[in-house]
């Protein structure tokens, strides 16, 4: 117990200074969210590279939470579906059902090249298509895998903070 | 009451059945093979019991108010106890003989008997009734003994009615065990006679019960104690009490249903009445302690034995026989306690048990005719297949279990209350525990037989004929009526109880 306290006092604040707010005008749906975004990550068949980056985005260093973004367990609770990876044949129907389960206004963010244009896995026998083909994507974060900062910036455009 | 009327009232009960017996005996002799049994002759059989009930009712209205009635120079005497028992005998006989034609018709249809057999049956049953009436009305203890021995002899061939191996076995055991038991009773009577003669009572009235009861104080205690012990063993044998009880299940499972009804309902009680007579004498001679201890021990041992044997029983007629043993032990316990509550309760229990057991045995007869087996295991779904018979048999067993509307409940409560007031609390509690075993066993088997879905093998639903249903329902209603209100009979009951020590 004591050791942990000393460690906490020692490390102090880990989160880096918040970069300036992105100027891009927020989406009409995002404006309704009013600075509170609840995110449900959906892995539509990614190689988990993007998942690691999303993890880092919510880690102490990038700390996406400080901008009002929170990960939640069920699409019912979520406003944003953070979709990664090319959509495999098995994940096509579940992805559609997850997006349908989210109450309006709902936003889909496609993370990583695979989500945009199937990236490395284009033409794979198991791949149904990219996320863009499957569901209407509002925001996309290119990169393989995209920087955590890029993901955080994308999310900040939704919260507006 | 003028002597002529009293003589008539006292001789009619034995005489009318005897006459009927004679009539049937003549018809038995002349009956050809296969001759049809005239219908009215069968229903004439009801005259005997009707006469008994009529005379008993007349006496019942007279005796409690004015004391005992005697006739033929004090040979026949009717006091409270004998009138009460006469009433019970008449009622049970009425039910049994009303059920007999139906039963015998079934037997004839099944080929077990023929016209001659029917006439022989009626002859012996009427003789049986006459003997019992004599046993009740006789004042001389010797004559009482002779009458009871006569009942054994007369019913021997009734038990052996069907000429099968089992009925011969039952008849032999019945005659040998009962005669041995009754012989002991006669030895006891002789010893009481010896003590009476030594106490200076004249030879003519030494065995006359009223004089004996009056002078009992002067009897020699040691001889009286030996005589009473032998009488309890002897008449106990005929009343189904330990140690010479073993004839009862065999005789009842083989005898025709109305006969076993008569035997269980009344014969056991008549021999117990004889025993009560001796108890009255012994109580004044030796003080109540001796007979109370002896009777209570015999009663509890019988109750234990019958309860345990009921638990593992597989034959429903033997089950009813053991239930008779159980109820006779409860009656014996009630008599042992004595006192103003337990003695009338015991006598009421005799009446209630007589009626309920008659209905149970007669319906068991019908069940045997319907399903041709006496095994409890092979009779299923009775209520589903013939509702009336199932209901009557079920209600009869409910009465025997001592459940309320029927009189056995009131009498059992009376005996328990009397027991605690009379200081025999421990015996009564032990008895109740044993009765609980019997309750469980009887309830389990009756439930198996009566309840459950209709069994295909048992054939189409069969209604119980009106003629055979009427006596059974009448029996149940009488038992229930006795249970709710005694009405005019309550004076007779108290009078009967006081004659044998229910002070």
């Amino acid at each position, binding site marked *: 117990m004591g050791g942990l306290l000393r460690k906490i006092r020692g490390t102090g604040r880990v989160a880096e200074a918040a970069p300036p707010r992105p100027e891009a005008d927020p989406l009409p749906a995002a404006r309704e969210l009013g600075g509170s975004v609840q995110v449900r990550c959906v892995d539509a068949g990614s190689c988990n590279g993007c998942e690691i980056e999303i993890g880092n985005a919510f880690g102490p260093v990038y700390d996406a939470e400080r901008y009002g973004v929170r990960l939640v367990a069920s699409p019912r609770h979520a406003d944003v579906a953070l979709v990664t990876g090319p959509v495999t044949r098995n994940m096509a129907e579940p992805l559609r059902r997850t997006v349908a389960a989210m109450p309006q206004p709902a936003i889909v963010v496609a993370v990583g090249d695979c989500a945009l244009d199937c990236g490395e896995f284009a033409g794979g026998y198991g791949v149904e298509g990219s996320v863009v083909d499957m569901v209407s994507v509002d925001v996309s974060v290119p990169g393989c895998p995209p920087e955590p900062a890029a993901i955080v910036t994308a999310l900040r455009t939704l919260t507006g903070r | 009451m003028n002597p002529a009327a009293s003589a008539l009232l006292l001789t009619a009960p034995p005489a009318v059945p005897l006459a009927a017996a004679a009539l049937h005996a003549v018809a038995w002799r002349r009956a050809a093979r296969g001759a049809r049994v005239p219908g009215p002759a069968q229903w004439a059989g009801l005259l005997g019991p009707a006469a008994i009930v009529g005379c008993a009712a007349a006496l019942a209205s007279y005796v409690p108010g004015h004391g005992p009635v005697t006739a033929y120079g004090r040979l026949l005497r009717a006091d409270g106890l004998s009138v009460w028992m006469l009433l019970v005998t008449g009622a049970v006989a009425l039910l049994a003989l009303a059920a007999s034609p139906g039963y015998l018709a079934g037997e004839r249809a099944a080929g077990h008997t023929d016209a001659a057999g029917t006439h022989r049956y009626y002859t012996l049953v009427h003789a049986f009734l006459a003997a019992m009436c004599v046993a009740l009305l006789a004042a001389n203890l010797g004559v009482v003994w002779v009458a009871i021995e006569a009942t054994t002899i007369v019913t021997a061939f009734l038990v052996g009615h069907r000429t099968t191996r089992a009925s011969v076995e039952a008849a032999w055991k019945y005659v*040998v065990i009962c005669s041995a038991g009754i012989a002991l009773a006669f030895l006891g009577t002789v010893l009481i006679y010896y003590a009476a003669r030594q106490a200076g009572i004249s030879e003519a009235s030494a*065995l006359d019960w009223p004089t004996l009861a009056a002078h009992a104080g002067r009897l020699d205690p040691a001889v009286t104690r030996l005589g009473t012990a032998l009488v309890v063993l002897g008449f106990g044998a005929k009343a189904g009490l330990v140690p010479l009880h073993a004839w009862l299940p065999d005789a009842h499972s083989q005898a025709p249903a109305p006969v076993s009804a008569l035997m269980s309902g009344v014969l056991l009680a008549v021999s117990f009445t004889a025993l009560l007579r001796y108890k009255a004498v012994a109580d004044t001679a030796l003080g109540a302690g001796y007979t109370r201890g002896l009777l209570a021990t015999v009663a509890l041992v019988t109750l234990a034995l019958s309860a345990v044997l009921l638990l593992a029983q597989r034959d429903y007629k033997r089950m009813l026989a053991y239930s008779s043993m159980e109820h006779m032990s409860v009656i014996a316990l009630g008599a042992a306690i004595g006192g103003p509550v337990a003695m009338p309760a015991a006598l009421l229990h005799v009446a209630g048990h007589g009626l309920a057991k008659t209905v149970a045995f007669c319906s068991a007869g019908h069940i045997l005719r319907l399903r041709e087996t006496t095994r409890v295991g092979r009779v299923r779904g009775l209520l589903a297949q013939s509702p009336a018979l199932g209901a009557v048999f079920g209600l009869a067993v409910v009465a025997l279990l001592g459940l309320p509307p029927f009189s056995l409940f009131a009498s059992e409560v009376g005996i328990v209350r009397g027991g605690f007031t009379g200081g025999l609390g421990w015996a009564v509690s032990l008895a109740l525990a044993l009765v609980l075993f019997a309750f469980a066993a009887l309830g389990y088997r009756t439930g198996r037989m009566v309840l459950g879905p209709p069994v295909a093998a048992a054939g189409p639903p069969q209604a119980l004929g009106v003629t055979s249903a009427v006596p059974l329902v009448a029996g149940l209603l009488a038992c229930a009526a006795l249970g709710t209100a005694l009405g005019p009979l309550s004076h007779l009951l108290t009078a009967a109880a006081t004659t044998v020590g229910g002070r």
Partner: protein
Amino acid sequence: MSHGVYAQLLDLACGVFLLCAVVVLWRRELAVVVRVLAVQGAALAAIAAVLGGHERRWGLLVVAAGVGVLRAGVLPYLLRRALDVGAVGGGPYREDVSEGRETRPVVNVAASLVVAALLVLLAYAVARPLVALDPTPATRALPVGLSVVLIGFFALVARRRALAQVVGFLVLDNGITATAFLAASGVPPIVELGVSFDVLLAVLVLYVLTARMRAAFGGTDLDDLRELSDR
């Protein structure tokens, strides 16, 4: 009849009476046992006659005669007829000889004699208060009556043959009647008449039942009678 002669005669009769009971237990052949039963009946009649003579009660003598005729004459005759019917068996040859003999009694003969002795002792102990009440030569012989009752009952229990059991029953009954005579010189006549009539009827019933048993079971061995049981 002087007092001494009366006492000796009475003791002689009682002695013969008790001896017959023991012999019934001792011998196995039914024919012999029936004859001993007749002798016992005669002894019983003798006891009654001696008592009647001593107390000058002619009624008692008549009763003694009746008892003699019944217990020494009629009943043994009935038993012999039942035996012969069994023996003849209606065929050219006699039925197997075991019918006439008590081949395997429930209790072997030696043991039953010991038991008989014990029962006699018990009878004497039980009869002590009876004798003490009125010590006359007659009442002093009461234990004999009681012991014959107990021996009769034991014979009833220990015999396998139907007729042997009937003999046991009759010995038991003789004992009781003897007790009655010795104790109070006989019960009132109508009771005595009724009792005798009942005993006669009982034997008649048993006679008919033996015939039926022979027809149903093919023999009179009581061990066959085990079908009615709770097992």
